[in-house]
């Protein structure tokens, strides 16, 4: 599996050993310089010594709560993005977290691709925005102005939803997108208990039928249990 590499320093504040190890391993694999803090004190110390770009902050920490750390970091003139990762996942918790100065909020259990996408988005906010990459991948080109998609010079007839879906996959090219991300960002479903996984799967099948089936090289792949990825063919 091809891995899109990011760059940046990330501090993971998480007391659950297994979760922390998995996060650190996953982030390192994706090219991030990652350090781990298991307690609030350690986190506070590491924020000052390593100057991370992004802090992944668990709210339920031993000794000092995550919100307290958050308030302390925010009380100082530091340019750091903070993403809360927690299983306290109600709207009130979200609002409390964002009010306390967090930049983003992700409820556990989250999908790792989604975490990567959020981190990338937070890092984009800090650095100079890269000029929008040409909407092209392998032999697929998208004319965003005219909303025309073609592959190998053949124009493809896509419905609005299919077009939006393809555009989203192109924006996250070489990265897996989960069904949760698609439900939220393409279908704009806010309720978490809406049975639209079925809809997403069928829609994906139809998109694949149009952009992949007539061509020998396949670009759109399903990663079972994780989501979907649109990626460059491996040479």
């Amino acid at each position, binding site marked *: 599996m091809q891995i899109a590499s990011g760059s940046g320093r990330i501090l993971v504040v998480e007391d659950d050993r297994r979760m922390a190890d998995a996060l650190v391993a996953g982030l390192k694999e994706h090219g991030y310089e990652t350090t781990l803090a298991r307690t609030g004190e350690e986190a506070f110390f590491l924020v000052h010594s390593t100057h991370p770009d992004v802090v992944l902050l668990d709210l339920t920490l031993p000794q000092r709560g995550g919100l307290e750390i958050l308030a302390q970091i925010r009380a100082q003139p530091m340019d750091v993005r903070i993403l809360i990762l927690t299983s306290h996942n109600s709207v009130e918790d979200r609002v409390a977290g964002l009010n306390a100065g967090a930049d983003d909020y992700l409820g556990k259990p989250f999908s790792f691709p989604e975490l990567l996408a959020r981190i990338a988005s937070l890092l984009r906010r800090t650095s100079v925005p890269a000029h929008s990459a040409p909407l092209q991948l392998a032999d697929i080109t998208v004319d965003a102005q005219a909303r025309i998609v073609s592959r190998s010079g053949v124009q493809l007839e896509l419905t609005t939803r299919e077009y939006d879906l393809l555009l989203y996959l192109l924006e996250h090219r070489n990265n897996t997108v989960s069904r949760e991300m698609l439900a939220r960002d393409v279908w704009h479903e806010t309720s978490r208990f809406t049975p639209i996984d*079925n809809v997403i799967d069928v829609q994906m099948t139809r998109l694949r039928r149009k952009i992949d089936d007539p061509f020998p090289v396949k670009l759109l792949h399903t990663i*079972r*249990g994780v989501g979907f990825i649109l990626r460059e063919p491996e040479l």
Partner: protein
Amino acid sequence: MRLFRPANIRTRLAVWYVVILAAILTVYIGAVFVFQYVLLERQIFHDEIQDVETVEGLLYFDTGGVLRLQEGYHSHPQSHLLEDRLMEIRDVSGTVLYRSDTLKGMTLGGVSSPDEGANSYNERSTRLSDGTHVLLISHLHPVQGRLVLIRLGYSMAPLHEQMMHFFLLLLLATPIALVAAGFAGYSIAKRALRPLDLMAARAEQITASNLNDRVVVEHPHDELGHMARVLNHLLQRLEQAFAQLQRFTADAAHELRTPLASIRTTGETTLHDNRNEAAYREAISGMLEETIRLNQTIDGLLLLSKAETAQSDKSHSSFLLVELVDEILVLLEVLIEERHITVQQEQEQVSEPLFADRSLIRVALLNVLHNAIKFSPDQAILRILYSRHEQDGRVFQRVCVHDSGPGIPSGEHERVFERFFTGASPQSAAKSGAGLGLSIAKLIIDRNGGGIFFDETAAHGARCCMDLPLHADRHRQV
């Protein structure tokens, strides 16, 4: 100022009873006393007038010009000793012509006033020089051609003495009556409240383990009986809710365990064998899929608890049901197209909006429509029927979703709404998912004052009908 506040109701009732009785008795005694006094005083005046009339007939001037009273009318000579009448007679110039022995030389009523006794009896009370209180009348009367002023009075002392006796009698009787009334009130209150003690004793013993116990209803129709019945109803509802909660917890544990077991087994067997990378990949993917299922079940449970507590009108808005259904159909369009299902909407014009939590109603409708599509065979027809429906004076908009799937076996029309219910046939069980969709839909619609049911008369397929209260209806209700 808090003088005395007894802790138990029966003492409080008895004390109130006694205090109120004492107040009433005081007022009553005062009124009776005053009334009696006034009555007796008037009687005395009346007697005096009678006496004056009598005396007038008995007066005469003797040959020496001295005014005298005929004594001959006493049948017994000693009778005049009983007389306690006071009398003084003057001539017009004020000279005293006659004074009764009972006055013992004192004057009666002082200097005469100009018109005294001419037009009325001048009823008045006065005091003698020895301090005796006297009720007095005056009358002008000619005796043998000479005009004389007759003053006649009675001492008030006997009346006062009698009234004092009367008063003392009342004063003595009142506390006795109050004490008796207090005891009676206390024992009546105690007897009346005894069922309360029994109820409290029984209720104290009821805990989670014996919620099926009930308090005793002694007299079903009085207030305490009513109270007992209300308590019993409360216990019954508690028992039901508790049983439901227990069942739900057990079911939830079961539902959460099933994917966990699958994850565990997959992990164990895969790790045990030395497999190739593809097999590991396959196993991990399967495990991830199970975690997604697990997460969806938890989300469903959270949504249930949210719908259970969501009561406030804050999240309510008014919207058209038809528009919401169309929105959901657009979302599900890709499934409908893929399965070549034809959607037919039949609609009676209902232009009033609903008033409800739109996002929750949307979840409910989405679940029902998604179910209908899931169970429809390919190339089937899905009918959506709208109608107005009135029940108990309330107006509902009814929407029925009629699929042409296998339908619901008889006897399961209610059970499909139970949490974690999945159909008995393996085919429907496979499609049912977590088995929370319909119970979520039912909870949401119930909480919004509507109703949801599967029409048992549907000839083929399943027909799910939802009644949702109309906005206009709501205002009429409020």
